[in-house]
């Protein structure tokens, strides 16, 4: 491994492998910025329009606020299309299909006017309320070259014309780039889902850590009769695979009347054999002299636990905490079984429901996937070392 050539090869191989591993993430992000027409292309679009900085600048000019867009009452926005005078384009605000009353389409006045060297499409809000989104369709004659003020989200052929469609003609920069994210977020009560997930995972981590620390300390440092029996029982529990517990625990929860509550999500997994083992290992590695000295100074077992063992075992607690949090946040099967109502859905269940709801709107689906994994990925980048060590520790025998 000394020579430069060998090093280069190692880097190339690792880069290729890393590229394959990272590709699904890139594809998720890229798709989450695509318009439906870009997503559904036989030839993949590598860099969608919404990822290009030039278009962010264009979008920032459209709408009341340069970041969030929108069209307030009485306000108007003008889009400029360079083109000759002979062929005027047509413009309209499409009605949402099947809607009896469409406030946006009815409350927006569309004018097409001749300007210097091109056409102005002016949208004016004549209603009383502000609009966050104003969809727009422009019919552009096919023989005239097109230079739109913002790349259209879809472009279809309609007789003599190109039918150019914008999902939002007043997006602002962020509204334009994150259109799919906003759509996905508004489509389901994600705030509630995130609350359920975070609450479940945090309580599991905090209470689970506390219980495991107590038991592990007793098993590592206190000589009490029956210790071996407890240890063997805990070991034996580890042999039981998780799926054996699904049915009986469900029945138990049903009898308790706990189905579809936080209890069902949290309580069955509070005591963790894995946590007990990990922390016991940690406590055993602390020097016995420490505890002897404390004992001579008159410290009881509880003082030893809370004043010496716990503060010294923070790395072990962190790695177990990360592991438990990941398991709880990413779990699908257990929440799927024990919850029914949308109020008790975790983010994973919400995403599962969204997979079937979103249909072919892959942009929104990938946006939802992206924000579901975002907390964990951000957490990883903040506490990279703890993550890696925490996971690596699970492999120690």
């Amino acid at each position: 491994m000394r020579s430069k050539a060998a090093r280069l090869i190692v880097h190339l191989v690792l880069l290729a492998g890393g590229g394959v591993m990272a590709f699904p993430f890139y594809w998720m992000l890229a798709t989450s910025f695509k318009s439906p027409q870009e997503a559904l292309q036989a030839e993949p679009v590598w860099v969608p329009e919404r990822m290009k900085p030039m278009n962010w600048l264009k979008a920032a000019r459209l709408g009341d606020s340069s970041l969030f867009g929108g069209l307030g009452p009485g306000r108007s926005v003008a889009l400029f299309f360079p083109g000759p005078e002979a062929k005027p384009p047509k413009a309209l605000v499409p009605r949402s299909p099947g809607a009896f009353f469409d406030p946006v389409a009815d409350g927006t006045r569309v004018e097409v006017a001749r300007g210097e060297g091109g056409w102005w499409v002016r949208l004016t809000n004549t209603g009383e309320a502000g609009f966050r989104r104003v969809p727009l369709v422009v019919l552009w004659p096919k023989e005239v070259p097109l230079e739109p003020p913002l790349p259209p989200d879809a472009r279809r052929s309609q007789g003599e014309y190109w039918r150019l469609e914008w999902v939002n003609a007043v997006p602002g920069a962020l509204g334009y780039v994150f259109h799919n994210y906003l759509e996905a977020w508004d489509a389901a009560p994600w705030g509630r889902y995130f609350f359920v997930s975070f609450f479940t995972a945090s309580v599991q981590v905090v209470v689970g850590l506390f219980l495991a620390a107590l038991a592990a300390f007793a098993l590592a440092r206190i000589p009490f009769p029956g210790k071996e029996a407890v240890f063997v029982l805990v070991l034996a529990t580890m042999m039981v695979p998780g799926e054996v517990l699904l049915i009986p625990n469900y029945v138990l929860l049903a009898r308790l009347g706990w189905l579809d509550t936080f209890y069902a999500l949290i309580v069955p997994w509070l005591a963790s054999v894995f946590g007990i083992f990990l922390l016991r290992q940690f406590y055993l590695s602390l020097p016995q002299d420490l505890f002897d000295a404390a004992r001579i100074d008159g410290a009881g077992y509880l003082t030893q636990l809370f004043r010496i063992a716990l503060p010294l075992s923070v790395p072990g607690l962190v790695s177990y905490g990360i592991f438990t949090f990941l398991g709880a946040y990413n779990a699908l099967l257990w929440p799927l079984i024990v919850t029914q109502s949308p109020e008790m859905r975790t983010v994973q269940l919400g995403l599962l429901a969204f997979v079937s709801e979103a249909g072919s709107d892959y942009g929104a689906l990938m946006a939802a996937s992206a924000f579901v994994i975002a907390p964990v990925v951000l957490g990883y980048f903040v506490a990279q070392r703890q993550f890696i060590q925490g996971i690596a520790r699970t492999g120690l025998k």
Partner: protein
Amino acid sequence: MRTYPLHWALGVGVFLALGLYAQRLGFLPAWGAWSLWAGYLFFALWGLRWGGWRAVPLALGLLAPLFPPLAFLGPLGAALSLGRALPEKAQAAFYGWALVWPALALLLVWQVFPTFYAFYLSLFDRVNFLRPAAFAGLQNYRILLEDPLFWRALGNTFWYVVFTVPTGLLLATFVAILLNTQVAFLGLYRTLFFLPYITALTAAAAVWRWIYHPEFGFLNWLLHTPGLDWLNTPTGVFALLLRPLGVELQGFLAGPSLAFVAVMAMSVWHFLGYQVVILLAGLQAIPKEYYEAAELDGASFFQKHRLITWPLLSPTTFFLFTLGLIGAFQVFTQVYVLTPTGGVLQDTLTLTFYLYNKGFRDSDFSYASAIAMVTFLVILVLTLVQRRLLEKRVNYEI
């Protein structure tokens, strides 16, 4: 009487509390709860005689039928008020048990009891909440052994082990060895390989479903196979590969369906990072001197890794192998997201998926429990066999 076993009072108290809850839920007859109460009464009286007024909190536990946790809190209170009056040994015994009991009680209720309860449930005919169940003995197991879907699920689990465990281990070992060569940008590469493992399987499977899309999926564009419906192709891969040669394979020999291979590829991608991190930790524990000595003797790259790395890494490899084996029996999420119905002709059925279908779609808890028990048995046997056969060849000393 020199000493008083307060930890026994505590133990009986815990069982009294659990027994009272069990009685409320109909798992324990009333006389069972009352005999536990009588047992606690005995220890409470003994304690009062031994410790006098300072043991009075013990009596609190006698009110447990009103509020079960009192049976645990009573002895705790007694320990606090008795304090140093207890001899050293009794203190150790008490605090040991007092610290262990909360976790142990939860384990008993949510892991030990359910294991037996699952077996009990499996002996009935269609347990559900709709009607009383009839005792059926081992009938569920008899049906299970002739159930083609169960064998399909077991076969898929077998293929999952055969395909993903060696592939994952080989790739991960290779990557870990490369990462262990003091390569620059180690953190970047490790992140690239590790990220899939911490992403939720639900989200990852949603992305892969999009990559596998028959018309607009990326994979079909990459492989120039337009229209190939990865996730809805029930034909076995061996059959697909050998068909051009004129060989027609049927049944188990046809191999896992193309859809299941797609699921397995996604799973390898997901778990690779975990294996890399564990193997890298194992590699870093191997002393550098071994390699230096080998280099002095003129060993080549492959000789070094075959003769030093492989044997010294074997405990880690063995651990990952065991984990992969057990994990194969628990595959659910990726299958459920990629092929929600279990695939065409149930070709992507796995054991946990089948258990879920039987228990929570068809509401047949007893049959689902039978599946769970058989799975448990298979895992147990496999683990024992694997220990016998493989662990002899594992080198635990460095």
